[in-house]
């Protein structure tokens, strides 16, 4: 596809929301949103988590019905009572977790429910295989996939494409993709983009939901920004700058995401010497008081494993960890915590949060001594500790008793950070602290990291987003194959240099260096 010029001619609107509002209890998820989705155009739908993107998509998809306003599709007002109604007019949504039946083959998944494809009483294997090959060829997948490959053996990118193939079967007019690249490598993402461009050329209307500015820029013709349920921006992408989009999402100008003021690190606080586990080889590392050290590397480079080893979660085979000059005996995380280390792991839902428990309970989990007397919980003390952290971190929650599962990703991450701040740690290890959270919450977490450094906390930050790491860190340590392979001071930390180091020992594996 050639570069999409901002076509002045009116494209045909396939489906259109007219003054759509939707309430969930007291929360107004959508507020009089009017948005047209036009044939042959890629519309990027952006906004922070909770801005109403998903709600809008689910209304187009027939999962929710608007409380007021209307949906106009193919020139007539329509009421979608179920996704089947939306499918009937050719609207399909590809969710982040594609629905496939893992134990059936690709061909069977593609033609599932399409009984006309059968001949006599049996499933016509030859016919199905031929058709499947044909479709695979259209997507450029004929070399890597066979019709009878088990669908469960496909990677996330292939599953997504399969879902799109299935959508194509029934006269596709509108294709909505919800954060489609969140689990794809760079190559896979590019292949998806090619498919999207081809569909666009065929006249399909594309709605593309993404957090990633670069993808929006690369793919979209038009961008719509939602904030707090309202449509803030709906303009051709060529007429709007990146920072205007971000500003529209966040609702305030982001002057500078990162605190660029010079820091003066104090003495070393966290000292790692020759630390070795099954996946980490002879790592030595110092993090000084008030210093932010970034840990870069490709997937599988051993960064999270190093963090877990320092925190005593993984058994170390050799080496030592010292905090403030005192060596710790690392038998379990409890020892690391007692020595003043805090750790926000990579996957907050499975490693950091008790999803069913309250915000207060989650924050106070690591400070039993501060919230109890003779083992009895002092609820007043607990609530005041939790409330002060909810205030300080600006955690948006209806109450301290709210189950954390109901909070947004950004607020969940803040709860995890709150747990460690309650302990006033000397050293804090943050593994992918901004993964899957919206721009506004990211900015707040960057500010918090800078603030903690200013207070003299030693910070070790792992991130796969290199611009973020470069913006945050005073120096960047690069890992590959479980070892430290290089170190770059702030001035020299450029993406290319980091990647060069990271890939020196892991040739051919790109995919980690994604830019948000």
């Amino acid at each position, binding site marked *: 596809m050639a570069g999409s010029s901002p076509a002045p001619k009116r494209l045909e609107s396939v489906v259109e929301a007219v003054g759509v509002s939707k309430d969930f209890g007291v929360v107004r998820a959508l507020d009089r949103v009017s948005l047209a989705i036009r044939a042959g155009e890629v519309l990027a739908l952006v906004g922070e988590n909770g801005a109403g993107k998903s709600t809008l998509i689910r209304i187009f998809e027939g999962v929710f019905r608007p409380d007021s306003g209307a949906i106009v599709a193919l020139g007539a007002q329509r009421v979608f009572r179920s996704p089947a109604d939306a499918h009937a007019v050719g609207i399909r949504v590809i969710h982040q977790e594609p629905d496939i039946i893992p134990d059936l083959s690709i061909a069977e998944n593609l033609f599932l429910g399409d009984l006309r494809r059968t001949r006599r009483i049996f499933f016509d294997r030859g016919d199905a295989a031929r058709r499947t090959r044909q479709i695979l060829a259209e997507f450029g997948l004929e070399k890597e996939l066979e019709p009878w490959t088990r669908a469960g053996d496909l990677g996330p990118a292939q599953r997504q494409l399969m879902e799109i193939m299935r959508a194509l079967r029934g006269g596709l007019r509108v294709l909505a993709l919800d954060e489609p690249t969140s689990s794809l490598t760079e190559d896979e993402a590019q292949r998806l983009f090619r498919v999207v461009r081809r569909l666009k050329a065929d006249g399909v209307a594309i709605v593309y939901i993404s957090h990633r500015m670069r993808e929006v820029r690369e793919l979209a013709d038009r961008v719509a920004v939602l904030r707090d349920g309202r449509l803030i921006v709906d303009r051709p992408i060529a007429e709007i700058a990146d920072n205007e989009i971000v500003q529209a999402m966040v609702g305030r100008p982001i002057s500078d995401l990162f605190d660029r003021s010079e820091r003066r690190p104090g003495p070393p606080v966290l000292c790692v010497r020759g630390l070795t586990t099954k996946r980490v080889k002879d790592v030595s590392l110092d993090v000084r008081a008030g210093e932010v050290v970034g840990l870069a590397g490709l997937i599988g480079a051993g960064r999270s494993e190093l963090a877990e080893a320092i925190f005593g979660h993984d058994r170390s085979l050799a080496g030592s960890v010292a905090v403030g000059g005192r060596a710790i005996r690392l038998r*379990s*995380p409890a020892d690391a915590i007692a020595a003043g280390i805090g750790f926000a792991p990579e996957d907050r839902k*499975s490693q950091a949060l008790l999803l*069913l428990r309250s915000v207060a309970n989650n924050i106070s989990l690591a400070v039993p001594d501060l*919230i109890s007397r003779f*083992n009895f919980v002092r609820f*007043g003390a607990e609530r005041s500790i939790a409330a002060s952290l909810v205030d300080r971190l600006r955690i948006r929650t209806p*109450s*301290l008793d709210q189950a954390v599962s109901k909070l947004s990703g950004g607020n969940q991450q803040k709860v995890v950070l709150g747990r460690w701040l309650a302990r006033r740690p000397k050293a804090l290890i943050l593994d992918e602290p901004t993964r899957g959270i919206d721009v506004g919450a990211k900015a707040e977490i960057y500010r918090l990291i800078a603030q903690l450094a200013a207070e003299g906390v030693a910070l070790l930050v792992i991130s796969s987003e290199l611009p973020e790491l470069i913006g945050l860190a005073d120096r960047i340590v690069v890992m590959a194959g479980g070892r430290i392979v290089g170190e770059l001071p702030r001035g020299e930390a450029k993406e290319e240099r980091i990647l060069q180091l990271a890939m020196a020992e892991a040739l051919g594996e790109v995919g980690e260096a994604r830019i948000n």
Partner: protein
Amino acid sequence: MTEAKTGVAAGLAESRAQKSAVRSMIERVGTHNLSLLIALAILIAIFGGLRPDVFFLVRNILNIGQAIAILGVLATAQTIVIVSGGLDISVGAIVGMSTVYIALAVGWTGSPLLSILFGVFVGAIAGVVNGVIITVGRINAVIATLGTMAVFRGVAFIVSNGQSISIFDPAFRFIGNGKIFGLPVTIMVLIAMVAAFFVLMNYTVTGRNIYAIGGNQVVARLAGLNVRAYQIGVYTLSGATAGLAGMLLAARTGSGQPISGSDGLELEAITAAVLGGCALTGGKGTIIGGLLGVLIIGVLDNGLILTSVPTFYQMVAKGVLLIAAVIIAELQGRRYG
């Protein structure tokens, strides 16, 4: 309180004021416990309506209480085990073993108090064994306690030579059948145990941490909790409680019998706990829920007897009740989860 000054607290107060009184009451009781209360009320209405002459007599109500005392103690302890992410199938066998050791100890020492303590001690040791096998041996709790169930049952037969051992001590007769201020002693024991468990799970750091390890072991470990120690502790508590339940049973029957407690007591305890809202995946469940589960089983048992439903049909009714309860809980979870 200091929090009153903060912005959050102000926001909280505001949102609290917006909630209606009914909503906040429901939230306090919990939706699951509320539906259990409704189920209980329905059962009481049915059986009360069918046998108004007997059902509401104080005598009958105390009967129900006495009948569920042992199950109640076991089910609330089982609730704690399930909340911690485990399961203890060996409690019935521990009850039987405890009755035997208590009966023997009465013969050895002549002291009812020492004998009871000995029974509880034997139960606690059995619990430690369970806990160590599960944590150190890294064996699934169901498999581990299924194995120890057979072991404990065997031990009870070995030490008693397979014989029933009578207890003649009047103290036991008093525990089994006596009353204080009109309230049977067994019911008082039940109330005391449930109260203690309630305080443990809701007002102590230990209880909080049991919810934490059941909710997610990795999270608990990364927050600095000693998961193994808590697990061993929970099984020890379960064993000791089963030892105490053995005391109640020995007192009721006036004997120590190796066979006692083998009539599916453990399954009934698990049934009550699940009925009470425990998720077998751990991290979810309440003591009050467990107690309500026991009360429902007790009222159902009693009502079915009063209305002369044959025993075999009673079993079917209980099974249906459990499945229905779990389905309802599942539907609720979908709605509110």
